């Protein structure tokens, strides 16, 4: 009997699973079908391997949406000024200069800004992409990637010293309606509305609308070239940099097709003016800019995809400048760029990917406006200073990203571009990233880049001061950089980079024959420096808190002279403290070294300064729907100056904003 009972018990043990399972196998089929149904819910398109920032050969800084929120950024400039190697300064015209690695020019034409990978250097007359994008609203931005160093081998013209790629929220990120509003000092107001939806039939749509308006910082301008001679002028007065802008961005997708673009209208006054005379509020800058891009990815094979796109870019300027109290000059033009690109991505193996592509574009300038007169409302046509012009360009490129070892990535790339007006240019790029010890990587890269001469530089006419030069060749830069990136402990990232750039054939005005000055490929410049960055993200209860610091030592020389108007060092210290899941506070200190003058400039150096910004952010309040932030810029009301060029030496320098406030609310539905 005991034997029986025991067997009975064992029988239960054995049969527990098997007999039950056999009896219920129909049920098992149901279970499996339920599993398959659960898996069916998720459709995934396009699988692309993103390159990890640590593994690229380029020196890259990524600023995420949550960083932007914590900074309390009012526009793109507030984001960029935290990036190591980048400095932001005011120009006399109004727009801001983006200094990169110790090189700064009036139109920042050596920096390429891109929106979702599309280049924004739409101003063909004067080059550069900062015209309407410098103060881009940030509420719709998902991520900003700043790649310092030359990238022409991939992106072609003008990816010279840095590429700033702005990635905006797509339908998936939005998934509903998001609105936000911000108010702050200088009568600043910002509004934003976005909507995004993914439909069942693989269609998706995202729309963003932004509106911004500000009266500007009203800096005191003590003198101008007239007032110093005792003649009537607006000086002493204040800067009139009012700015108003609205824009609409769209991203529409259906199956593998995507149609995206952005339209921007920007109207602005000016900071000082276009001449050496302080402008009153009658200087008006009016810009329209859009691009439209239709793209499609073709998946030929699992390992072989082809990206194709056609695009149309448009840029128009219609600006009225006050040259003297009763003299106004209106200048305008329209630029378009229409073209297409085809890029093949071949994933040779798990360790090697080759991309190669061809691009073509036609650039045109027309609808020129040139008027002059004493009454700003009734100006008379005058000789045109710019030219109607057409340029065709094509380029081919190839890049190979290869991991010969698990801890070694090598990148080799080259691009050849040919322009109808100045010929061809070849730009290679190569480098490696070697993780020599776990969490410690060594980077090395060498590359060249070029900046195509702008239409204005090639064909400026009827300007008494400076004339264009149709014989110009592109500017060139050769850069090599090396650095170490390390994660000694979880949460800690440190990076040290040394770079050396030699810029040759710089396009700059030199003494001319018919005019005082004429553009020429003249001179070279050496820029070298060290960028140190470190960031520690706290974990556990302090999740969301971080401290970070970056410090840059830079040295740019031309003809053995330290370059004017750029500092030798710059430091950013930031701390973000998350009190709980809702509240966090942010503090930022920017320390900038003093900047030298040109040898001919007798003014004292522009003194360095330290600015202190603080902010408070409340996230996911009221059922995860509301975020509120309040920031104080320049908390200690430090009076500081951006350098005015030697030509404006009589005004001293540009006094920048004192303490400023900014409050921001955003809502998700």
């Amino acid at each position, binding site marked *: 009997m005991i034997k029986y009972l025991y067997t009975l018990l064992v029988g239960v043990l054995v049969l527990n699973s098997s007999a039950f399972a056999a009896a219920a*196998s*129909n049920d*098992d*089929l*149901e*279970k*499996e*079908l*339920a*599993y*398959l*149904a*659960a*898996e*069916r*819910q*998720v*459709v*995934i398109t*396009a*699988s*692309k*391997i*993103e*390159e*990890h920032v640590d*593994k690229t050969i380029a020196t890259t800084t990524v600023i995420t949406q949550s960083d932007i929120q914590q900074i309390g950024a009012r526009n793109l400039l507030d984001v960029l000024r935290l990036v190591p190697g980048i400095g932001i300064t005011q120009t006399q015209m109004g727009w801001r200069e983006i200094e990169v690695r110790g090189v700064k020019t009036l139109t920042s034409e050596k920096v390429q800004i891109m929106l979702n990978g599309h280049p924004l250097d739409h101003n063909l007359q004067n080059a550069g992409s900062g015209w309407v994008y410098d103060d881009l609203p940030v509420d719709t931005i998902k991520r900003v990637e700043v790649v310092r160093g030359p990238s022409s081998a991939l992106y072609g013209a003008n990816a010279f010293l840095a590429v700033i790629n702005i990635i905006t929220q797509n339908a*998936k990120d939005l998934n509903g309606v998001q609105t936000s509003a911000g108010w702050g000092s200088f009568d600043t107001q910002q509004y934003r509305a976005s909507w995004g939806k993914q439909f069942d039939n693989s269609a998706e749509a995202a729309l963003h609308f932004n509106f911004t308006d500000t009266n500007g910082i009203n800096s005191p301008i003590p003198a101008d070239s007239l007032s110093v001679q005792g003649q009537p002028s607006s000086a002493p007065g204040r800067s009139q940099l009012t700015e108003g802008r609205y824009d609409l961005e769209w991203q529409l997708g259906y199956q593998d097709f995507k149609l995206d673009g952005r339209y921007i209208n920007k109207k602005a006054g000016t900071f000082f003016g276009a001449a050496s005379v302080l402008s009153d509020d009658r200087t008006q800058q009016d810009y329209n800019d859009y691009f439209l891009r239709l793209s499609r990815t073709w998946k030929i094979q*699992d390992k072989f995809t082809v990206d194709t796109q056609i695009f149309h870019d448009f840029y128009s300027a219609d600006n009225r400048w006050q040259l003297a109290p009763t003299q106004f000059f209106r200048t305008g033009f329209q630029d378009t760029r229409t073209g297409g690109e085809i890029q093949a991505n071949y994933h040779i193996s*798990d360790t090697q990917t080759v991309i190669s592509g061809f691009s073509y574009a036609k650039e045109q300038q027309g609808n020129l406006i040139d008027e002059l007169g004493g009454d700003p409302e009734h100006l008379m046509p005058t000789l045109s200073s710019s030219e109607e012009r057409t340029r065709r360009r094509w380029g081919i490129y190839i890049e190979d990203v290869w991991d010969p070892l*698990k801890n070694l990535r090598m990148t080799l790339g080259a691009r050849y571009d040919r322009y109808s007006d100045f010929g061809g240019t070849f730009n290679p790029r190569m480098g490696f990233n070697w993780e020599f010890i*776990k969490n410690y990587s060594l980077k090395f890269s060498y590359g060249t880049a070029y900046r195509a001469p702008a239409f204005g530089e090639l064909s400026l006419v009827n300007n008494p001061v400076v004339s264009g030069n149709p014989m110009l060749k592109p500017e060139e830069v050769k850069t090599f950089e090396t650095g170490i990136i*390390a994660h*000694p*402990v*979880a*949460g*800690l990232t*440190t990076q*040290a980079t*040394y770079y050396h750039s030699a810029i040759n054939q710089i396009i700059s005005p030199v003494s001319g024959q018919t005019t005082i000055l004429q553009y020429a490929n003249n001179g070279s410049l050496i820029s*070298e*420096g*060290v960028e*140190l960055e*470190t960031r520690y993200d706290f*974990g*556990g209860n302090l*999740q*969301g808190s971080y401290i970070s610091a970056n*410090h840059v*030592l830079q*040295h740019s020389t031309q003809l053995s002279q330290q370059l004017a108007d750029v500092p030798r060092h710059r430091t950013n210290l930031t701390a973000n403290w998350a009190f709980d*899941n809702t509240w966090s506070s942010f503090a930022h200190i920017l320390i900038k070294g003093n900047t030298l003058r040109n040898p001919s400039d007798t003014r004292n150096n522009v003194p360095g300064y330290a600015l202190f910004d603080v902010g408070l952010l409340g996230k*996911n309040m009221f059922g*995860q729907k509301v975020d509120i932030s309040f920031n104080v810029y320049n908390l200690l009301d430090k009076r500081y100056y951006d350098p005015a060029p030697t030509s404006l030496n009589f005004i001293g320098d540009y006094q920048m904003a004192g303490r400023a406030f900014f409050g921001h609310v955003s809502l998700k539905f």
Partner: protein
Amino acid sequence: MKIMDFCKVLILLSVFWVSAGFALPGKVLIVNSDNTVFRYETIASEFKKVLQQNAYQWTEFNLNSHADAEAELKQLIQQENPVLIYCIGTKAYSLARNVASNKKLLFSAAINWRRLDIGEGTYGVANELSSAQEISLLRYFFPTIKTIGLLYNDKFSREYVETIKKEALALGINIINQPINDTQEISGALNELLPKIDMFWIISDPVVLSSKASVQQIFQAAQQQKKPVYAYSEVFIEQGAVLAISADLATIGRQSASLALMINEDKVPEGTVQNPAGSTVTLNKCALDALRFSFNQDALDSVNKIVECDK
């Protein structure tokens, strides 16, 4: 450039690096697509067993029991700051990838993982056995099979089917694959496919296997044309499959756990996705007899279960 400045800062930095301490071992966050789904839950429970044996802590998050799963998951990740997120099922993985792309992710039970958006901090255990393993075992049982046919949906299974074709060819078996977009196409596709093949293979394609009706349709058609059906799961044995070689769910759970431990010790190369190491073999002798289809008797020691006809 003052070289001394550079050196000073480098020295400072090196001190910072060297003096840094050790990170504390952290928690694992288990995100389950739906804990009422048997496959997901079995894997989860085996995974937890191994974590427990190794004195690891974990937190579980079941997507099916949260209304606003995305926001809540985001918050949980912030709160718990896990060292690793274990995602069971495609839904869990996609969501975690969206809200925590900077965290290490380990996935399993995701159909055809090659279609997933895989980043560099991602690891996984595939849902399907290595097709080479499956085909090797299949051939062990049925050495005479030369041509096998299968139905699939391009959106869900393309990459997997491509691998099957390649591996099969290397082992001397020809795969004829027929894509379908909808279950309505099953009947037509089978009529075309079945006459050309020695055996029909049911793969885990969620479009082909969207309902019981479509499962029945497959077996009826195969029976009419007297073609044996091989399936990826033993649940199809009852329907008449002659052989099922399935990934052992418990092994997937154990294997994930073993990967999780090694990831935490930084001993696994990033991007590693393993196939399940364990197989469960079910042989339906009843169905084989009915088809008068013979099999290699030596293969019996690899069988987990033999199904005989009810007497």
